[in-house]
């Protein structure tokens, strides 16, 4: 999973549109990760096609999405993987 993909799933545990994912990711990472619109548009289309997220409704030309059951499972696996990486990192110190 790409970093952008991870943040999209993380943010879409609540309903949100594209730009609010950008803002929330920026907040979570203290401005370190700024998702670009081309990458965001491509990732959202791809993830919707793969059934990881679903389209809810449209507001002022902004599509609102939410994570699906499959998306939640994938996110959980990814979180466990990252936790394991982090633990190993601590133990190896």
């Amino acid at each position, binding site marked *: 999973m*790409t*970093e*952008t993909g991870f943040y999209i799933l993380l943010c879409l545990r609540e309903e949100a549109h*594209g*730009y609010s994912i*950008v803002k929330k990711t920026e907040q979570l990472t203290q*401005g370190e990760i*700024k*998702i*670009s*619109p*081309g*990458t*965001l*548009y*491509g*990732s959202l*289309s*791809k993830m919707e096609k793969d059934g990881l997220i679903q389209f809810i409704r*449209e507001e*002022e*030309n*902004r*599509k609102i999405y939410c994570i699906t059951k499959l998306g939640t499972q994938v996110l959980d696996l990814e979180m466990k993987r990252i936790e394991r990486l982090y633990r190993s990192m601590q133990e190896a110190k």
Partner: protein
Amino acid sequence: MKDTKTEIRFFSIPEWKKEESYLREQHKNGWEFISLSGLCVYRFKRCEPKDVVYQLDYNPDSLAKKNEYVQMFRDCGWEYLQNYAGYSYFRKAVSEMDGSEEEIFCEDASRLDMMKRVFSGRMIPLLVTFFLVIIPQIIMQGRIDDPASQSLMVFFCIMFVIYLGLFIAFAVPFWKYYRSVHNNRR
């Protein structure tokens, strides 16, 4: 002193990075891009010299949902300029970016996806022409022994070289991106 100017510039299919820097250079020199139309005719108007980043996206699917596509870029501060041959043109002033220089793609994976879209939208038709028209014509005309066929043969040989050049110019950066993306993956 004229306040607008027109330039004809030809950028081949894989050269969108060159086109982006051409537009940025023009703006730096006080020429703001207005439009691109016809056969590669670029129109500019005089402006205050400014450092503005120009970016191209190739996403034919987005044309059907243009409003939401453009809105997403606008939300992120990118001005949508126009569409030309399937490419969407965007710009954003460096002064509006906080600190680091922004692009419309922030990951190699999505840069590679754009190359794949360009490949299937623009290169596949060329490949079909290459294998179904140019190569058969060279073989056929080479067998006939009269001046008309010989000049046709020369024409198709020139086409052969141009197409081959295009394929190589596309394949080299594509391969580089492809490798860098795959090396980054676990």
